[in-house]
C-alpha cells in the first residue's frame, strides 16, 4: 500500500516540477492536461488508500530520517489514518476538478503554464500538511500552502491590488504562524518529541496550564490559516486571485487547515474544554459576523468568501465543542459545495468579462443554464435544505451546540443559518434571475466550454449526495476521533431540525420574494446598518488607522532616523575614513627606494616593539 501513499503524495510534486520547466513559456495546453492527469492519479491513489484504511486500518510509513540532532529526532514520516485519508480524498478530488476547470478558465492567460505549476505545488504542500505524522511536517506543509497561496493570490502581480492582497494574506498568516511556532516549541519543550503519537500519549501527564497554553498557541495558528476574527480580513481580499484558486485554496482546502489542526489535536483540546468553548464561541461569532457582511456585499466572489468564513465558524463550533467528526464532516461537504459555488462564479465572471458586481448581472439564466443550475444546487446545499449535503452536516453542528447546553451559540448559528440561506439566494437571484441588467452595460454572456461543465458535475453530484453517507462517515472517522454522543431526545431533535429547516427555507423564500420585485429600495442603502455592513464593520479601516499607519510611521522613523543616521552613517564613515587614509598615505608611495627602505625599517621597529611587549607564551 506504500506505493499508493507515495503516489498520492508525490504525483502533485512531479506535476509541479514538470510544469515548472515550461513556466516562462507561452501557453502550452499539454501542461494543463498533464498536471490534471497527475493530480487525478493522486486522487485515485487516495481513494485506494481510503478503501485500504477502511479494511486494514491506518498506514504509517517512515520515509527517511530528516533531523537527527541530539535529543531531537524528526523523521519524514507519513500517516494515512481515518482523518488524513478523508482530507486527502477531499483535497485531491477538489484539486482534480479545479485543475481540469482551470484548463478552460485560464485558457487565454499568458501565464497558463506557471499557473498549473503553482497549483500543483499547492496540492503537494497540502498533502504534506495532512499526511505528516509529526508537527514539523505539518508546519512545513502549513508554510508551503501559505507560500503557494501568496503566489496564487498575487498571480496577476502586475495588478497592484492583487500583489497587495497577496502580501496582506502572507503577513497575516505570518503573525498567526508565530503563535503556531510558539505552540510547537512549547510542545517540544515539555514533551521532547513532535510525533503526534508521542505528544498525545504524554499530554495527560502535563500541567493543565501548559496544555491550555499549547492549545491557545496552536489555535492562534489555526485562526490565521482559517481566517478567524480578528485575522479574517485577508480572506476577502484574497479574492483578487484567479477564481480556481479561490475555489481550491480559499474555500475547499487551505482555509480548512486550521480546522484540520484542531481536529488532529482533538486529544489535546478535549483535555481543555474551556479553551474549546472559547474556540466554539469565536466560531459562532464569526459565523454570524461573516454572514452579516455577506448580506450586503455586491461583489460576487466576496459574498462567497464571507460565506466561507461563516462556514469555517460553524466548523470551529463543532471542533471546539468536541464533535470532531462532525467538524470534519462539515469540512468535507463544505469543500464540495463551496468549490462548486466558486467555480460557478468563475463561469459567470468569464461570461461577464471579469465583471464582479452582481448588481450589473441579472437574468443570466437564459444564457448559462448549466452554470445556473449547478450554482443553485450548491446554494441550496449551502443553505442546508434536506436532502442536500449541507443539511446533514450543518444541522449536526446546531444539534451539538444545543446538546452542550450552549443555547446562545445555538441561537447564533440558527440565525446564521437563516442569513446563509438569504444571502445565497440573494446572490442566485441577482445573478441568474430578475432584470437583465447586463444588457445595459453591454455584456454578451456565453456559457463556458462543455468540458468545464462536465468537470463540475462530480462536485454537483457530491454536493447533493455527500450528506447521505453520514453514518458511514461517522463509523469510519470515530475509529480514530472521539465519539460524540447526542443526548437530546428524539422529539426535540425533530423540532430543532424543523426549526432550522424553517428558517433556511424562510430565508430563501424571503430572498426570492424580495428580489423578484427588484430588491430593497434605495433608502436601505442609506441606513446605518447597511453602511456598517458594507464597510465590513470598518475593521479594515481600523486596522489601517491603528495598526498600519503607526507601523508605517514607526518604520519611517526607524528608516530615516536610525537606519540612515546611525547605521548608514557608521558604515559611510568607515568608508570615508578608509578613503581619507588612502588619500593621505598615497604620499608614502614616492617611488624612491630610499623612502621605501625607511618605511620597511619603521615596520621592523613596530614588529620589534611588539616582540618586546607581546608574550603569548609567557
Amino acid at each position, binding site marked *: 500500500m506504500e506505493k499508493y501513499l507515495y503516489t498520492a503524495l508525490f504525483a502533485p510534486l512531479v506535476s509541479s516540477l514538470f510544469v515548472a520547466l515550461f513556466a516562462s513559456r507561452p501557453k502550452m495546453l499539454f501542461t494543463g492536461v498533464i498536471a490534471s492527469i497527475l493530480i487525478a492519479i493522486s486522487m485515485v491513489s487516495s481513494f485506494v488508500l481510503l478503501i485500504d484504511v477502511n479494511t486494514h486500518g491506518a498506514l504509517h510509513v517512515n520515509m527517511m530520517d530528516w533531523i537527527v540532532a541530539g535529543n531531537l529526532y524528526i523523521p519524514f514520516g507519513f500517516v494515512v489514518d481515518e482523518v488524513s485519508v478523508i482530507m486527502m480524498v477531499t483535497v485531491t478530488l477538489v484539486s482534480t476538478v479545479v485543475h481540469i476547470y482551470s484548463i478552460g478558465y485560464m485558457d487565454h492567460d499568458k501565464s497558463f503554464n506557471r499557473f498549473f505549476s503553482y497549483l500543483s505545488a499547492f496540492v503537494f504542500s497540502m498533502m504534506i500538511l495532512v499526511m505528516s505524522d509529526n508537527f514539523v511536517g505539518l508546519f512545513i506543509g502549513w508554510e508551503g500552502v501559505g507560500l503557494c497561496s501568496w503566489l496564487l493570490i498575487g498571480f496577476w502581480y502586475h495588478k497592484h491590488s492583487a500583489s497587495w492582497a497577496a502580501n496582506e494574506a502572507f503577513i497575516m498568516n505570518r503573525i498567526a504562524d508565530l503563535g503556531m511556532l510558539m505552540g510547537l516549541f512549547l510542545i517540544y519543550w515539555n514533551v521532547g518529541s513532535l510525533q503526534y503519537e508521542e505528544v498525545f500519549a504524554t499530554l495527560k501527564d502535563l500541567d493543565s496550564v501548559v496544555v491550555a497554553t499549547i492549545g491557545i498557541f496552536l489555535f492562534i495558528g489555526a485562526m490565521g490559516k482559517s481566517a478567524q476574527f480578528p485575522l479574517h480580513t485577508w480572506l476577502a481580499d484574497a479574492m483578487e486571485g484567479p477564481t480556481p484558486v479561490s475555489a481550491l485554496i480559499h474555500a475547499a482546502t487551505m482555509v480548512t487547515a486550521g480546522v484540520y489542526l484542531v481536529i488532529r489535536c482533538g486529544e489535546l483540546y478535549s483535555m481543555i474544554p474551556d479553551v474549546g468553548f472559547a474556540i466554539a464561541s469565536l466560531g459562532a461569532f464569526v459565523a454570524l459576523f461573516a454572514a452579516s457582511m455577506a448580506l450586503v456585499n455586491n461583489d460576487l466572489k466576496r459574498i462567497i468568501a464571507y460565506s466561507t468564513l461563516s462556514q469555517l465558524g460553524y466548523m470551529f463550533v463543532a471542533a471546539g465543542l468536541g464533535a470532531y467528526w462532525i467538524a470534519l464532516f462539515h469540512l468535507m461537504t463544505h469543500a464540495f459545495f463551496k468549490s462548486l459555488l466558486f467555480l460557478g462564479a468563475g463561469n459567470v465572471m468569464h461570461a461577464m468579462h471579469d465583471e464582479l458586481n452582481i448588481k450589473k448581472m441579472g437574468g443570466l439564466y437564459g444564457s448559462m443554464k448549466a452554470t445556473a443550475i449547478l450554482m443553485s444546487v450548491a446554494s441550496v446545499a449551502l443553505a442546508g435544505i434536506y436532502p442536500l449535503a449541507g443539511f446533514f452536516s450543518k444541522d449536526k453542528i446546531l444539534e451539538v451546540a444545543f446538546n452542550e447546553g450552549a443555547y446562545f451559540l445555538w441561537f447564533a448559528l440558527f440565525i446564521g443559518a437563516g442569513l446563509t440561506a438569504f444571502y445565497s439566494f440573494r446572490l442566485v437571484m441577482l445573478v441568474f434571475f430578475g432584470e437583465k441588467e447586463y444588457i445595459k452595460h453591454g455584456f454578451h454572456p456565453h456559457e463556458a466550454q462543455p468540458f468545464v461543465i462536465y468537470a463540475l458535475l462530480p462536485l454537483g453530484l457530491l454536493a447533493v449526495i455527500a450528506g447521505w453517507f453520514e453514518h458511514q462517515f461517522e463509523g469510519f472517522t470515530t475509529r480514530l476521533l472521539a465519539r460524540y454522543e447526542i443526548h437530546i431526545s428524539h422529539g426535540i431533535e425533530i423540532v430543532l431540525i424543523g426549526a432550522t429547516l424553517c428558517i433556511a427555507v424562510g430565508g430563501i423564500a424571503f430572498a426570492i420574494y424580495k428580489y423578484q420585485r427588484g430588491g430593497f429600495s434605495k433608502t436601505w442603502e442609506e441606513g446605518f446598518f447597511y453602511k456598517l455592513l458594507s464597510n465590513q464593520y470598518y475593521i479594515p479601516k481600523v486596522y489601517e488607522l491603528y495598526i498600519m499607519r503607526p507601523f508605517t510611521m514607526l518604520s519611517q522613523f526607524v528608516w530615516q532616523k536610525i537606519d540612515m543616521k546611525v547605521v548608514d552613517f557608521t558604515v559611510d564613515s568607515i568608508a570615508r575614513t578608509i578613503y581619507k587614509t588612502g588619500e593621505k598615505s598615497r604620499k608614502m608611495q614616492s617611488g*624612491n627606494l630610499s623612502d621605501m627602505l625607511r618605511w620597511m625599517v619603521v615596520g621592523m621597529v613596530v614588529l620589534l616593539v611588539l616582540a618586546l611587549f607581546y608574550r603569548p607564551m609567557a
Partner: protein
Amino acid sequence: MITLTHYLILTGLLFAIGLVGVMRRTNLLMLFFSTEILLNAVNIGFVAVSKYYGDFTGQMFAFFIIAVAASEVAVGLGLLILWYKRNGSVDLNSLQMMKG
C-alpha cells in the same frame, strides 16, 4: 667568559649598522654593501646559537645564507651594470618610476 648574549648583542649592533647603511645610502652599489652587512650580522647570530645549543641547524642556515648572498650579488650586480649602461648613474634618486 663570553656568553651567547654577547654574541647576540654584537649581532644586533652589526645589524643596526647595516640598517643605517640601508637607510643612508642612495648609491645602489653602497646599498648592496649594506645588505651584505645585514646578512653577515645574522650569520654570526646563527652560528653562535648553533654553538651554544649544540645544534647544527644554525650552521646549516648560515651556509645557505651565504649561498643566497652569492646568488644575490651575481644577479644584483648584473642588473646594476645594465642600469648604469642605460642611465649613467646608480643613484637611487634617479630611479623613481614607481611613484604612485
